[in-house]
């Protein structure tokens, strides 16, 4: 269900977003983003560089996570700023369940035409993104 973002106040949380990411999503993302690094589809290559297995593109996670806000974005608004650090990889198993990612966003500040959010993203008990900040421009 869509929320009216501008009715939120500083300190309010948005609706929790949870999504599953499976191997097929990474194949689609590689094609759509032109990032064909084999650590995102080959266990053989991922483990050879010291990873536990195939991992999601950091940019896939950053893209999917923004939905916690953009799912509620009116057509006249746009994201003027979006930044994150990638702190831990999302390991994507070769099964039908994939990895479950949980996303929480909080309003940190409001101005006449802008709203500022901080976002927390975890997979299992690990934070996968850190210092994630997003600004919506409503002008």
């Amino acid at each position, binding site marked *: 269900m869509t929320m009216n973002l501008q009715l939120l106040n500083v300190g309010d949380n948005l609706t929790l977003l949870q*999504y599953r990411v499976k191997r097929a999503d990474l194949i689609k993302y590689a094609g*759509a983003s*032109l990032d064909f690094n084999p650590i995102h589809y080959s266990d053989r290559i991922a483990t050879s560089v010291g990873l536990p297995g195939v991992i999601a593109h950091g940019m896939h996670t950053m*893209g999917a996570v923004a*939905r916690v806000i953009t799912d509620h974005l009116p057509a006249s608004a746009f*994201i003027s700023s979006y*930044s994150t650090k990638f702190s831990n990889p999302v390991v994507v198993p070769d099964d039908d369940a994939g990895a479950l990612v949980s996303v929480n966003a909080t309003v940190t500040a409001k101005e006449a035409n802008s709203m500022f959010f901080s976002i927390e993203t975890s997979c299992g008990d690990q934070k996968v993104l850190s210092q994630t900040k997003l600004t919506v421009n409503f002008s």
Partner: protein
Amino acid sequence: MAANLEMVGFEYPASDPLQVTVSDIQNFCSAIGDRVPAFAKTVSAPPTFAISLIMQAMTYAMNDPRLNLDYARVVHADQKFEHSRSIVAGDVLTVQLTVADIKNKMGNDFVTFVSKIFDAKNNLVTTSSSLLVARTEA
């Protein structure tokens, strides 16, 4: 293997104009589980779509022998986007990539690429800053 510090400030030639299509945006949305905009008058791209435009220039730079980056060991550490508007279907955009910073610390290379995306009227649409780390062999 250490990245070449003399490349700091190096500007790659601007990309050829890239035409953004409805299907480019739909495919990207589908891949991140986003609502696929199909019937909107203006199909606008999600905030990280810009990376698909930048990736070609960044992949070229990461493999540029002058930069001397160990591409196989590169991880993405930090990403920032500043947008002056949403990218929309129909945009014709060019990408200008600069090597903004290189640091060698403890044998790891920290390389920051700044990419600017301009529209057909030469207005700045997006500034992207990507910090990539090439980890040393353990």
